[in-house]
Each structure stands twice: as structure tokens, then as C-alpha cells.
């Protein structure tokens, strides 16, 4: 578990320094999987900061430029997830926020979720506050669970395919053996050829 934790930190530190056009959510080729795979790599675009009326959500006001913006439910790729899992995401996110910010939010959770501003903004420090830890852990857990589910499906499908192959093979063999048996039965039923019976021949001179 420790190595996993270290890995996340190292990976996100590395990500931050490299160019990330490919992972920019506003890049039209940005796909959901990229978003899910790289929670730390998104820089908050300018419009996000300005449209951020819900400043109470932020743990700390974003200094220019903010190190990261971690947002579980913001960004273009996430809208359909919002609709699919409204029950799951709502209570979790509300727990993350400061108690003060819950009040204005509770009446219109979807608006808050869909808004471009992150529901939580975190500084990327080595020692992170508990909110960030649980967000990371949750995210990491989700990915691990997905991979595990995929492996399970692959395992099941591979075994099924193998069994189908074996069945086909065995049926073929069965048919072949039956044919062979039939042929042998027919051959045994016909009268024996003359050459097979005992015969008197003369070989010795006496």
C-alpha cells in the first residue's frame, strides 16, 4: 500500500512538470479514460476560476498558478457519470466540503456538480490534508476495482472459450471413432476371405 501511495505522489509530481496538452480537458481528444487516469494533471483553466462563484468550496484560494485542481465531478467527460450515479456521488462530495459550504449547496446539488468549478481544490503538497487523501484513495480504489473486474471477466471468458474448443474437439473425435467402429464392424461381418482359412499345401517332399 505504501508503494502505491508513493507511486501516486511521484507520478503526479512528474506529471505536473511535463507538457500536458494531451491531457488538457479542453483538448477535443481528451477522453474520459484520460480524465479518470490522471486526477492530478489538470490545471484549472481561466474560466473555471472566474466562474467559480462557489468559493466556499475551496479549501484554499487558488494562487496563480495553482499546483493542481482535483475535482471529482467537474470537466467535460464527467457529465454522463453525474447522471448515471447521482445517488453515489452526491453524498460523498457533500461530506468532503466544509460544513459552511453545505448550506448553499444542498438545494441545488446538480448545479454545483455540473459547474466548471471544482467542488474541492487542493494544493499538491507532500503532506496532504485528510480530504485529499480520501479523494485519492477513492479514485485509486475505483481504478483498481475496474481492473479487477476486467480481469475477472477475461478469466471467465477465457475458460468458456477453452471449454467450447474442447467440446468441439471431443465431438469431432467421437464422430470419427464411431465411424471407425462402424467400419470395423462391417469388415468383421463379411465372410472371411479364402486366404484366411487353413489350407493344405505341399512344401515338404515327403
Amino acid at each position, binding site marked *: 500500500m505504501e*508503494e*502505491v501511495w508513493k507511486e501516486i505522489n511521484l507520478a503526479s509530481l512528474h506529471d505536473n512538470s511535463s507538457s500536458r496538452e494531451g491531457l488538457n480537458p479542453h483538448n477535443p481528444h481528451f477522453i474520459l479514460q484520460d480524465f479518470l487516469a490522471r486526477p492530478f494533471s489538470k490545471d484549472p483553466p481561466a474560466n473555471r476560476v472566474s466562474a467559480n462563484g462557489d468559493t466556499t468550496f475551496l479549501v484554499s484560494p487558488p494562487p496563480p498558478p495553482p499546483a493542481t485542481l482535483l475535482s471529482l465531478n467537474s470537466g467535460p467527460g464527467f457529465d454522463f457519470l453525474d447522471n448515471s450515479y447521482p445517488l453515489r456521488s452526491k453524498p460523498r462530495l457533500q461530506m468532503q466540503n466544509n460544513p459552511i459550504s453545505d448550506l448553499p449547496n444542498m438545494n441545488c446539488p446538480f448545479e454545483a456538480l455540473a459547474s466548471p468549478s471544482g467542488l474541492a481544490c487542493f494544493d499538491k503538497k507532500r503532506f496532504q490534508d485528510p480530504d485529499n487523501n480520501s479523494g485519492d484513495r477513492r479514485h485509486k480504489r475505483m481504478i*483498481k476495482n475496474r*481492473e*479487477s473486474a476486467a*480481469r*475477472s471477466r*477475461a*478469466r471467465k*471468458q*477465457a*475458460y468458456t*472459450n*477453452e*471449454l467450447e*474448443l*474442447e467440446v468441439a474437439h471431443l465431438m469431432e473425435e467421437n464422430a470419427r471413432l464411431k465411424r471407425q467402429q462402424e467400419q470395423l464392424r462391417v469388415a468383421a461381418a463379411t465372410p472371411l476371405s479364402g486366404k484366411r482359412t487353413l489350407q493344405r499345401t505341399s512344401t515338404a517332399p515327403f
Partner: protein
Amino acid sequence: MPRDRDPLVVGRVIGDVLDPFTRSISLRVTYATRDVSNGVELKPSQVVNQPRVDIGGDDLRTFYTLVMVDPDAPSPSDPNLREYLHWLVTDIPATTGASFGQEVVCYESPRPTVGIHRFVFVLFRQLGRQTVYAPGWRQNFNTRDFAELYNLGLPVAAVYFNCQRESGSGGRRT
């Protein structure tokens, strides 16, 4: 069988351990009375001792190498020891079995602790009788590199089984 339905592909053995290849030699691995076919599940108690391995081919002067690895060590979700070498036998004459070859790395019983592991048997044809040196350690073995190092080419056969710890619940919540 179409490539994408091949159990070795679906089970990601081709991909994680091997490159695509064409089976040309029969490989039969048997633990006690149980034949290993792709994807069967065996318990550690069933695979404690080395299996019987029978190979095909027709010319006793052709030699084969058998490799057994675990690509999911120590855990399938974090296989940082991929691949863990469990057994390595060389100079197996065609039509015979592993007991006729040279055991370069002795059989180590699978003992998975976390997750469901795949254990893969791979058969390679040797160019001739050759000296194969055992690696310094079992973990982080690379079958592809090994094959390249000893000019073994692509595999001629492979089969794998799944194994989890004895008291495992098969990944199901109990």
C-alpha cells in the same frame, strides 16, 4: 480459432507474457489425474509437486525447453515481480516428457497469497542441445528476453491455469 477468441489471448497470456504464436507441438501438463487446460482453477494443494509434462513432435533428436512462470506475482493488481520463474527444464527430447530433460531451475510450488494468479507453461523448440544458465533469481524473469537470449524463437505451445490461496473464495464476496 479466430485470434480474439483464443483463450491465451482472452486470458492475456498472449500480451502479458508471450507474443502471438502458432501452436505446432502438443503439450500435455497433468497434475496427478488432472489435465491442465487453459483457465482451469487448481488449488495450491493440487500443484505442490511438479506435474507430468508430455510433449509431441516426432524426432527424438529435436530438443525443447519448458518454462513455467507466474506473471501475476505478487498480486495481479500490482505484479511488480512479473514474471516469477517456477520451473525451467531444457533439452527435452521430442515425444518424451520433462523428466527426460535437464532441470535448470527446480520446480517451486505455487503459493499465491493475494489474488488469483495465472501460471503459464511455455514450450520452445531449441536449435540444438544447448547450455542454459539459470538466472540469478526467480523474480522479474522475462520469458521474451529469455527466448531471445537463447535463440528459441516463438513458442510452439503454451497452456495456463489459475490458482489462488487455499482458502480463497474465488474473488466472490462471502
